[in-house]
Structure formats: structure tokens, C-alpha cells
């Protein structure tokens, strides 16, 4: 059983830069308030009629190019998003059409902030089981069309940014390399601590004018920030430990920790707990905000570009977010 490895990474960052100061034009907030609580300085928004798959395909093309693989050599597409282009079918199908590789299976993974890692873990299972040789994992989000950009929605709206990232996963012959271990968790008890309610098939009907445009719209994400923060620090720590233990490593062996970019303060607390110096933790939320399923791919891309991941590096990718869901992967580069 051969290990799976990431052989190419790509990204797409949309062109519209939105600074914290820009947000003060539509809501009562301040650069200082946002930075103090989240570390975020700016984020990017997509342009009209550009959806998650439209961005994802650009990231995918770059990942394929870097892996030296043609689109028609891809065996399977996994698309992680919570902001699909259309309600149905999956964004994976829309991306597939743009890559012009009809016939290969394409499906969406809907696991919010842990979506990229749930998708990589699934790609890893496909490769290990010998079903596929080239699995394209894409994370893409257009948050900007689904947040309440008024003072009412500011607590959540300031956090999110748009973006996409992709990774090609292939088998590797060297048994010491590649994805060493994967760990996926969820706890639905806390589903409504960070969620987007409607459309909701548990309502009758699932989408109404009141939900969309009533005095208290139900189509925007809601969050109990403090609650999420506390659980995030705990679960990030646990799941990183779980991966290290499974691979027989310690935190001191890690060359780089890439946490889902949820909040700079969370990442800093987690790093502190493992006694990891700043250079061993990748944080770029300052420039992109929280891009949910795209964040870990965007961060991995940056780590490779800046030489922070090299041949032989031991990486831990970790995520926590809505669901609650959380996950970790250990990769020997």
C-alpha cells in the first residue's frame, strides 16, 4: 500500500482587495477592533458572477501545472466548499466542466473549515486503496455574497474572505514520504454555535422571503465567538497531539504547523501550547481573512513559495471549525 503525497499546489486570490478601513464604510467597526480580535488586516472579495468553482479551476490548473500533470490525467475531483456556485449540483461538477474532463467522478465535501483536510484524507484513502492515481482536491469559497455587510452582521462578516486553493494527490514510492496519518472528528452537539441556517430542509419550506429579507434574516452565518474560540484551542491541541502520537513523533519534530486560518489569536495560543516558535507556524490570515475550505491550501502554497517547506520537512496540517468539525494530517514532504 503506497502512501499518498501532495505533488502540486495552486491557488487563486480574487482581485478585489478589501481593507478593514474599507469595511468601516458599510458598518460600525474599526481597523483596531478587527485586528485586536482576529489579526486580520485585509481580505479579498470575488467579482460579480464568479463562483467557488470559477476560482477553484484557476487554482486547480496551477496545481496540475506544478505537478506536471495534464487535466485529462486526473482520476477524481473532490471539491470542498460551504459556498457552492449553485444549490445543486455540486461545485465539483461545475469545476469539472471547466477542466473539460467529463467522466471522472466529482463530488463536494461539505465540512466547512475542516473541508480541505476531510478532502485530503479522502484522497489519501482512495490512493492507499489503489482506486485512483491522481486525485484533485480543491477548496474554494465565495463568502462575500453570503455575509451581512452591515453593523448587524459585523462580528462574523469582518472575518471572512474569498479565495481558492488546490492540491494534486498522487502515490509516492518512498514509504517515508507523503501523508503519514489522518484524523477526522466532529461533534454535532455544537452545530449551532457557528452555522448558517437557511436554506434549511428541516424548515417547511426550506427558503422563504422572510428568511431572506425579514427583520432578522436567517441566510447569514451566525457565531458564538467566545464559545468557538475556547473549543478551537482545545480541539486543535488534541488533534495535533493525536497525529503526532499516531506517527510516533513529538511537537519538537515538526518543521511547520499549518493551522486553518480561523483567527490569529487561536493559532498563537495553540502554538504556545506546543512551545512552537513563530517560524514554525504559518499564519497568513492577516492578508486573506478566514477563507474556510481554501485556507489551508492557501497557507501551504505560501509555505512552499517561501521555502518554509523543503524536501524532508515534517508538516502538520490542522483544522477546526463549524460542525464542530476538526482534523489533522501529518505529512513528510
Amino acid at each position, binding site marked *: *500500500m503506497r502512501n499518498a503525497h501532495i505533488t502540486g499546489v495552486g491557488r487563486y486570490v480574487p482581485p478585489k482587495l478589501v481593507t478593514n478601513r474599507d469595511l468601516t464604510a458599510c458598518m460600525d467597526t474599526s481597523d483596531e477592533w478587527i485586528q485586536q480580535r482576529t489579526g486580520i488586516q485585509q481580505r479579498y472579495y*470575488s467579482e460579480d*458572477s464568479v*463562483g*467557488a468553482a470559477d476560482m477553484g479551476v484557476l487554482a486547480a490548473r496551477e496545481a496540475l501545472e506544478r505537478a506536471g500533470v495534464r487535466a485529462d490525467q486526473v482520476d477524481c475531483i473532490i471539491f470542498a466548499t*460551504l459556498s*457552492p456556485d*449553485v*444549490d*445543486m*449540483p*455540486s461545485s*465539483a*461538477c*461545475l*469545476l*469539472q466542466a471547466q477542466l473539460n474532463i*467529463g*467522466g*471522472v*467522478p466529482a*463530488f*463536494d*465535501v*461539505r*465540512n466547512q473549515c475542516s473541508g480541505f483536510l*476531510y478532502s485530503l484524507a479522502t484522497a*489519501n*484513502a*482512495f490512493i*492507499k*486503496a489503489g*482506486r485512483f492515481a491522481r486525485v484533485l482536491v480543491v477548496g474554494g469559497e465565495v463568502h*462575500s*455574497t*453570503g455575509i451581512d455587510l452591515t453593523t448587524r452582521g459585523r462580528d462574523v462578516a469582518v472575518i471572512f474572505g474569498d479565495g481558492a486553493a488546490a492540491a494534486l494527490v498522487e502515490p509516492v514510492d518512498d514509504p517515508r514520504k507523503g501523508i503519514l496519518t*489522518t484524523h*477526522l*472528528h*466532529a*461533534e*454535532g*452537539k455544537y*452545530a449551532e454555535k457557528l*452555522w*448558517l441556517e437557511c*436554506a*434549511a*430542509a*428541516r*424548515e*417547511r419550506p*426550506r*427558503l*422563504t422571503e422572510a428568511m*431572506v429579507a425579514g427583520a432578522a434574516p436567517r*441566510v447569514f*452565518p451566525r457565531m458564538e465567538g467566545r464559545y468557538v474560540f475556547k473549543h478551537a484551542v482545545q480541539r486543535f491541541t488534541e488533534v495535533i497531539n493525536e497525529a503526532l502520537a499516531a506517527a510516533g513523533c513529538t511537537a519538537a519534530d515538526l518543521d511547520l504547523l499549518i493551522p486553518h486560518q480561523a483567527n490569529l489569536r487561536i493559532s498563537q495560543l495553540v502554538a504556545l501550547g506546543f512551545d512552537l516558535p513563530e517560524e514554525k507556524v504559518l499564519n497568513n490570515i492577516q492578508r486573506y481573512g478566514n477563507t474556510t475550505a481554501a485556507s489551508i491550501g492557501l497557507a501551504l502554497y505560501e509555505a512552499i513559495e517561501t521555502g518554509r517547506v523543503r524536501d524532508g520537512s515534517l508538516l502538520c496540517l490542522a483544522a477546526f471549525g463549524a*460542525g464542530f*468539525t476538526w482534523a489533522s494530517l501529518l505529512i513528510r514532504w
Partner: protein
Amino acid sequence: MPTALLGLAHHLPASQRVGSAQRPIFRDPGGPSDLAVPAARQAVREAGLTPEQVEFVIFATMTPDVTFPGAACYFQDKFGLGTVGALDVRGQCAGFLMGLMIADDYLRAGIYGTVLLAAGEVHSAGLDYSEAGEPVARLYGDGAAVTLLGARPDSGLEAVVCHSDGRHYQRFWIEYPSSRQHPLRVTVDDLREGKHFPRIDREHVERFGVERLPEVVREALRAAGASAEQIDCFILSHVLPEVVERSAAALAIPPARWIAAGARHGHLTAAALPVALSEARTAGRIGTGARVCLAACGAGYAWGAAVLTV
């Protein structure tokens, strides 16, 4: 050791009249996760296991309880599964087969020892029951099925193949909410135009289904090294009943050996195949040790087939 269905059960809400048809319609407040819980209880019991022994959950649906998190998280909590991973898969009509493919590989790779695969839909929350919408609304029903998958030494899943082709996604789709619409992904105007209801280009969907459904059945049989005569029962799923009939005819399967998944309940999308398989078992039409072929084709387009011994 092959992946096997250690337990399988379904749950359907009470039947209601929709136009000229009778359909299972979930009237109570609740989503697909609620429909899946009673089925899960039965499936786990049949496997002789307890919920604590479930190591991973996969939920296939296109009608989740809320927009996010997914139905898998709600289900995972309602069924009392602690902190096991819960993967939400969106594969439309092929959702169950895609979930089966994923579960099979997590098991064969040795990552998990048991996977609970749930598939459920509450379509009735998102259909247009006006006179204009009735021809589409009457195609659908609500329901869920759950299977507990694990390794079994003798026999089980022999082949599962899945495909997609996104080029024609607008032939069978629900447009809104749509993240690509700025500044807001859904507006009152979109709702007034009915763009949050499913739309089907029947002619195109039928033509595609009639071509792909028999083709993917043949592919799965080839992969399993089985001839059509060696299959005790074919279960075929498509939103349009005529596609299932024409596919069975194209495959020259005698009527006694095929089941139209949507015949009684309408189309249950991700849940269609496992509900039909579970019902056929309960009714004694499929006995233990029977070799079965499941196949579905639908929105995406996405399609697939599996050959397994139950």
C-alpha cells in the same frame, strides 16, 4: 477482506397525496438527519454492534437540515456518536454510490474498521407544490436509509464505479442560493421567480440517462467479473421512471429481476438505492447471499453502479 453491508435499514415518513401520486412526505419539523436516526438504530442492531463501535460517518444528501454544518454533524449528534468524524458528501443521485466508494476505501486502506453510511432526503421542503410545479414535485419523496459497512471474510462489495460530467449541469439543477450572485446569493426576486426549485430539461435528462444507466451497469458487471445472468436483482434509480424501464429493456433483464427504485415512493435521490435495497430485503425479494447490482444516474450529471453480495 471485502467491504460488506453488515446492517441496512430504511425509514420513510407517512404517505401523502401529491397530485395524482402517493409520496412519503416528512410533515414533522426535521431534516434528513432525523429520518436517518431510526434507520441507523436498526442497521447497527442488525450488524450486532453498538453505536460506540461506529468509527466514521458519511452522510449523502442534497437537502441538508441547514445550510451548514452538514447533515452528518446533526446525525452524528442525534445518534450519539461522540466525536467520530462526520463527512458530508454532495453527489446528488449518485450520492449513495459515491459514499459507498469512499467508505470502501477508508475500510480497505485500514483507516477505519466500521463506517456508517447514511443517505437521506427531505425534498418536500424545497418543492413547488403549486399547479405549475406539480409535474416536478410529484416526482419526489422523502426518506432515508443507513448501512453499516465493515469487512466480512467471505463476500461483500465486488465493484463500485462512479462518474460525473458537469457540462450539462443546467439541464437538471437548483440555481439558488448561488454564491456567484453579487452582492447577495439569494434575493426575494429570485424566490418570486421560483429559481430555488429544481428545474429539469426532461428531454435531455432522459436521453442522457437512457445512454448512461445501462452503460454503467455493464461497466460495474465487467469490474466485478459477473454476467447479467449471475445477478439476482438489479435496482435502478432515475428521477424519470421511463429511464429505468428503458434501461432495463436495453439490458434485456427480465421483469422479475429488476426493481425501479422510485416506483412506490418517487425519487429519493441519494436515498433511492439503499431504501429500495432495504425494502426488497424486508419483503424477502432479496435474500441473504443474493448478488445485487445497484445503479443510479442523475443531476450533475453524476452516475454510478455497484455489484455486491448482501
